[in-house]
């Protein structure tokens, strides 16, 4: 029980310290009118809170004590006083003390529909002293008791390469979230692109790419890489559109090379992050399936998986990164394996665009059946065995 309370206090202290940092940065940035008209700096608080949670996760579950800056009396006192002073001086001198901090916090926490500024101010008046008290208690308790956190995956056991990978991945996700939330133009572009891809609207996506003029191919390539790493969007719609827009030969070259870039990035990202993290990203079940597949087909597994279009391209890239397959084996297997589908989709994109809807529908059904099969298989097998046992 004491450990749970201590863990909770540490969590609140981490979140509160990063909240103060985010609030001060957001209010500083808002002072620049040029930036304020182009970027919603309020979301700095959101990202700062996430960073606090990330540092807390690293500290608690990976024993990375050096990230626990809220446990250090000197650092937490200096940072919190500095941040509160910046916030107070700017808002008091600007006559916005009762409006700007509460506005920033309310927006960053997506509470605009639920709270008035007065309500948010009351909440801040209550929560800030509590936050300060908890932070002071966290510093005091960490001095009193040096906790020994049990950890399966200690931070110090990771290689520098893996540490760099984990921090880079968090940095990339945080940066993407910040830009997506804060920049209306970029958010709009992403929403449009994902809308066209989700609806398998090849002609709409072609017009979208054309709106970038000479950069159309670059945007197409970047989206292909992006969807490979983060977003679960149907890549074959991009391949179809590239065929329609650039002709099947150049479309296939573009799709093939950008898909390769995405696959290589996923492969190395998986190597950096290590198996436990990849397991969380692609699910344990999916990774177990891949292990069995890899065991059965050995180094040809990647090539075979690439030939079957319903097997997730990104899952294979991530999963291959945590197996013993060498980079060049992975590279050639992926390159040659994805070639037939890339050429076929590019050709269909140029000559029979309407087939994408049919293909999309077939994919949806096949994937749905595969998922249902995966869910029911163990139960059916268990029942089958039970029945055999009863008969025997």
């Amino acid at each position: 029980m004491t450990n749970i309370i201590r863990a909770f206090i540490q969590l609140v202290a981490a979140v509160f310290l990063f909240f103060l940092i985010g609030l001060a940065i957001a209010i500083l940035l808002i002072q620049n009118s040029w930036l304020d008209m182009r970027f919603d700096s309020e979301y700095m608080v959101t990202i700062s809170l996430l960073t606090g949670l990330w540092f807390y996760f690293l500290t608690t579950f990976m024993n990375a004590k050096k990230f626990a800056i809220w446990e250090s009396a000197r650092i937490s006192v200096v940072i919190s006083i500095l941040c509160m002073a910046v916030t107070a001086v700017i808002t008091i001198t600007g006559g916005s003390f009762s409006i700007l901090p509460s506005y920033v916090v309310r927006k960053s926490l997506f509470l605009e529909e639920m709270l008035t500024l007065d309500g948010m101010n009351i909440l801040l008046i209550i929560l800030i002293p509590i936050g300060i008290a908890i932070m002071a208690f966290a510093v005091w308790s960490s001095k009193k008791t040096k906790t020994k956190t049990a950890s399966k995956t200690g931070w110090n056991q990771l290689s520098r390469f893996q540490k760099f990978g984990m921090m880079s991945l968090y940095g990339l996700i945080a940066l993407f979230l910040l830009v997506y939330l804060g920049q209306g133009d970029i958010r709009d572009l992403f929403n449009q692109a994902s809308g066209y891809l989700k609806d398998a609207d090849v002609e709409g996506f072609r017009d979208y790419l054309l709106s970038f003029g000479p950069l159309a191919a670059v945007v197409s390539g970047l989206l292909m890489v992006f969807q490979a790493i983060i977003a679960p969007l149907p890549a074959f719609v991009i391949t179809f559109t590239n065929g329609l827009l650039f002709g099947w030969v150049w479309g296939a070259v573009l799709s093939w090379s950008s898909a390769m870039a995405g696959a290589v990035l996923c492969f190395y990202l998986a190597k950096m992050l290590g198996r436990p993290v990849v397991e969380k990203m692609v699910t344990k079940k999916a990774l177990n399936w891949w292990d069995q597949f890899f065991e059965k087909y050995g180094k040809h597994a990647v090539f075979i998986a690439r030939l079957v279009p319903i097997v997730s391209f990104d899952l294979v890239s991530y999963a291959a990164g945590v197996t013993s397959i060498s980079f060049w084996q992975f590279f050639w297997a992926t390159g040659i394996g994805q070639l037939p589908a890339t050429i076929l989709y590019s050709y269909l994109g140029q000559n029979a665009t309407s087939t994408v809807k049919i293909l999309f529908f077939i994919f949806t059904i096949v994937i749905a059946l595969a998922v249902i099969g995966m869910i029911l298989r163990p139960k059916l097998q268990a029942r089958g065995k039970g029945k055999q046992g009863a008969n025997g």
Partner: protein
Amino acid sequence: MKKKSAHIFKFLILAALAMVVLSACSSKSTSDSKDSPTNTENKEGQNAEQVVTKEHPIYIDKEKKVVKVYATVNGKYLVTPTRHGLNWVEGKYGNQSVLSAYANPLKFNEALKEIDGTPAVEKGGDASKEFEEKDGGKYILGDQVLVTVTWADAKKEYDINDVMVDSTGKKIVYRFGGNYDVQAAKMTGCYMCFDSCPAGITSNSNQPVGTFDGGHAEFHGNAKVLPKDGTPVILTYSIEK
């Protein structure tokens, strides 16, 4: 047992198919409702304040030749400079204005035309002719638009210059720029800009293009007059001929 499993399989397949079909239908109906012109109202014999609401944010009174727009106050820009007077909340710059509107700006453009407003640039027109080149820069053309603002506890119907502040002390004079095509393509959400603007439906003809970005003037809502953040207000537009 085999029969039972087959039944479960059939049921799940049917459920999956039904979900695919239903999701296709629901996405269609959503896009349909977005395209339908439900926001523009013209109900005779009814008080405008009763009709113009968040759900029906634009009201056209053809007899009196006025357009009424429902909006809410954005507290941030009572204390922070901005170049946007009124923006549609769903536009790209939806929350960067003193007042937040709830109808697509294209409908506002059409509403001003219905009360005989002539924009500087018509739908499909030549955008290069919407500005007048003078000393100091490019100034927006089009019919002059008079704007007043009121709200539930307001003492009177305030002129736009009572509720908005230009740091240079110049009066704000709105003109009907139009810019239908730009809004349709970029959907910035701009109803009223504080300097002459190639995207806003209306913009201030007393300040040239780039005034705010160039740091020549700052604009914000008047915190001494406007009500607090979130308060609904009604803007009334008429054309000065």
